[in-house]
């Protein structure tokens, strides 16, 4: 797979995001015998699809196939990255330092649960 850095502009946040990605992957890989059955059930594919459906503003009652959800998610992330680059261009240093400080502290509890 070709190595592409998707987050070209947000350099100081890149490390923070990769740290988060490492944490969420480590949780997935380690076998925790003490993990509650309901917690591991919450981490399965269907729950991820539901959560993604919610995050990209697809109404929950609408029946959408998994591949359609993926396509929406791809477009949504791409749009957010573009928006971030536009914002980055207008106020680079201030935006980056505020965001880098915020990133590790202000995740909502729900997203934290998914990552941990």
């Amino acid at each position: 797979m070709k190595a592409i850095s998707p987050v070209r502009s947000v350099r100081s946040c890149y490390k923070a995001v990769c740290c988060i990605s490492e944490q969420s992957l480590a949780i997935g890989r380690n076998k925790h015998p003490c993990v509650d059955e309901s917690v591991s059930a919450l981490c399965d594919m269907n729950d991820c699809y539901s959560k993604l459906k919610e995050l990209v503003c697809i109404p929950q009652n609408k029946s959408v196939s998994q591949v359609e959800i993926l396509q929406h998610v791809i477009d949504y992330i791409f749009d957010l990255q573009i928006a971030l680059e536009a914002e980055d261009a207008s106020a680079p240093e201030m935006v980056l330092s505020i965001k880098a400080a915020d990133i590790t502290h202000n995740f909502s509890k729900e997203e934290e649960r998914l990552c941990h």
Partner: protein
Amino acid sequence: MPLEREEHARSREERRRRRRATAKYRSAHACRERIRVVAFNVAFGELRRLLPTLPPDKRMSKIEILRLAVCYISYLNHVLDV
């Protein structure tokens, strides 16, 4: 259901079963399924390329891709809402 409609439903069902039993149908269905699976995997590949990892081309399973996509979207939403 009235008797006539029930008989029509049964013969529709039988016709469907007979159509699906042919080798030609099964082969076409297998081909459609392969295309569907390839499209599905291509979508996962595209999503994988958007996600920031170290190294950027690190191999990820489907569940890992979904979980990281959830975290990453939450992060981007948070950053842009500030």
